[in-house]
């Protein structure tokens, strides 16, 4: 799927060449104590590039992310899986600097969006977050009308000049989120009155209304029923034509359904990264294998 790229870790590279991918036996897997990333973390055609990212909480007392290097490609969906507390949510929140709001949290390393370092001192975080949108675990529509929920972002960024443009943008965003037909007759009603799945699609519509380049999704379906989940997954498939999407999920089925690449995190380390098929069918690392076969997690 991807051409061979730069080597991140020589030891891993060696191991990978020693073990041809298909049909490996368990004994040939990378030992569970190896904490270096296995697999191709970098892609040539990246939208975001994270290099040697470390994250500390509680003013440096607790390390949540340990030396993670990972690329997010253009027009790809990358899934992040791993047991609870493995740092996947922390990592995804670094990508649009949402961790800035947490007192005592420190991020080290470089994270590039295209060619700009988003942690550079000269970077203003406000327009940055407009370029990297985020959808959260729990649907969080604002206590405003459906219309205002969508129109809010474009208004504060001056993307719309008058009522007519706003109307068009609201309609377009809701249509792309697959919500238009359900809410077009009640745009003035509060967004909090929608069902959980509709609320989450409203939040996605709200995010794409400000026309970001990357969309981060932090367990977007964990509060939803299977039907609503299926709708959102179709939506993600649709959205990847225009955006790069990073999705954190607890559901391995979901990761295998929506993503092209999958990253497996464990206790703050990125253990394995690779094409989704490979991660789920023939993982290289013992821990990945244990996790996807349900031994722990």
């Amino acid at each position: 799927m991807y051409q061979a790229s730069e080597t991140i870790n020589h030891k891993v590279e060696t191991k990978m060449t020693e073990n041809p991918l298909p049909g490996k036996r368990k004994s040939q897997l990378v030992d569970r104590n190896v904490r270096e990333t296995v697999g191709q973390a970098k892609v040539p055609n990246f939208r975001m590039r994270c290099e040697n990212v470390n994250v500390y909480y509680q003013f440096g007392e607790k390390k949540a992310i340990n030396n993670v290097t990972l690329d997010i490609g253009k027009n790809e969906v990358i899934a992040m899986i791993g047991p609870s507390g493995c740092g996947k949510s922390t990592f995804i929140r670094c990508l649009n600097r949402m961790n800035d709001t947490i007192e005592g949290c420190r991020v080290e390393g470089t994270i590039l969006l295209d060619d700009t370092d988003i942690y550079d001192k000269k970077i203003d975080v406000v327009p940055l977050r407009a370029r990297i949108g985020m959808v959260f675990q729990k649907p969080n529509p604002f206590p405003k009308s459906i219309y205002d929920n969508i129109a809010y972002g474009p208004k504060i960024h001056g993307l719309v000049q008058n009522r007519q443009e706003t109307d068009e943008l609201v309609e377009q965003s809701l249509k792309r989120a697959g919500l238009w037909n359900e809410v077009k007759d009640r745009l003035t009603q509060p967004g909090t009155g929608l069902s959980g799945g509709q609320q989450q699609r409203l939040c996605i519509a709200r995010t794409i209304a400000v026309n970001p380049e990357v969309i981060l999704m932090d367990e977007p379906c964990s509060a939803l029923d299977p039907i609503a989940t299926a709708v959102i997954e179709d939506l993600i498939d649709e959205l990847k034509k225009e955006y790069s999407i990073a999705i954190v999920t607890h559901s391995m089925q979901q990761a295998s359904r929506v993503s092209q690449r999958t990253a497996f995190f464990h206790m703050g380390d990125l253990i394995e990264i690779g094409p989704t098929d490979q991660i789920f069918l023939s993982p290289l690392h013992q821990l990945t294998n244990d996790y996807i076969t349900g031994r722990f997690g």
Partner: protein
Amino acid sequence: MTPTYILIILLLLSTAGYYLGRRRALAVVEGTGGPKVLHSRPVYYGALTALWCAVPTLFIFSFWLVCESTVITDMVLSKLPETIQSLPADRLNLVMNDIKNLVNGNIVSGEENADLQAAADYYQYLRSLSQGALFVLISVICIGAVSILQNRIRPELRARNHVERVIYYILIACSVLAIFTTIGIVLSVLYESIRFFKIIPVQDFLFGLKWSPQTAIRADQVGSSGAFGAIPVFIGTLLVSAIAMIVAVPVGLMSAIYLSEYANRKFRAYAKPLLEILAGIPTVVYGFFAALVVAPVIRDSGALMGLDISSESAMAAGLVMGVMIIPFVSSLSDDVINAVPQALRDGALSLGSTQSETIRHIVLPAALPGIVGGVLLAVSRAIGETMIVVMAAGLSANLTLNPLKTVTTVTVQIVTLLVGDQEFDSPKTLAAFALGLLLFVVTLILNVIALYVVRKYREQYE
């Protein structure tokens, strides 16, 4: 055997009942499987016994205390000599008071004589008799209750359900008590107000533009005939409260926003209690601060600008009152702003709004019902505040909206009308009740309006 002792004994008996009941419950199931055979846990059997002791005896106790005095007084009166009994009712009352004073060892109004002394002795005798009887009655009831329950306690006795039912009724009784107290206060104020309105027509009171409650008490006295127009007084209240709110709402709200959204945890941990100390300062301290510090400053700075400001002004009282209620607004707003879910802030921030946009567009609208509640509490506090206004705003009822003039408020007028020796049927005194009633109605209307606003807002957004 005074009532206090009887009450203590009653509590001791109930406590003993608790332990006896619990022990009995455990003894009943001894050897047949232990406490798990019981329908309820053993404490409930104890509690049930204690309630059986305490509830009826407490009723009898309070009933007894209420009736005791009346019954004894009647009995003493009937023993008094004919000459005294034939006195008019108010004189008879005086005699009765003297007897009670004798009993308690206080000074009597008239001369002590043998008749009074005999009556006092009789009163004393009856009282100790009654208290002895009460003690015996209560003890008998407690012992009876314990022995009945000792026989009744069986594994299948649903002690928990009984106890919870009794607690349920106690809860109802407590809430009813609060309601009845309110009703009682309103009725008494209403009753006196109606007496006032029989002398002064309602429309004169409600729409009169002049307030001058001094009336001549005797025919030969020099004094005005009195004017009871409530409007100047209410304008004064509104003026002072408005100034206070103009100070308190912006300052309180903004400090709440700073504390909850911008300040780091350490600063907040110190600043919030410090701010709340403001609420702990007695209003009388604020009062002399207003009268001795703020009012002269305002007067002097006014003089510099060529304004003639009286040394007692609505401005001085309002400013200091505003400072006093800052912690109400700020503390309550801070709590509701903190209660706004972090998810909403994250949502707004992730769309690329700045922190101030997030606060103005998302957090404050979401917190508005709570903020309105806090502001309303502050308004009630401002309207009801007395001490600061007495000291700093003055007593003369000027009908003015100029904050640099002396004004007076409803609460101040009520205080001045009722302080000192007053006769209780002159319009001057009764006016206090009418003012109180009107103030009550105004505050009630304010609350209703605010509730309506809050509810409308909630319907729209939740």
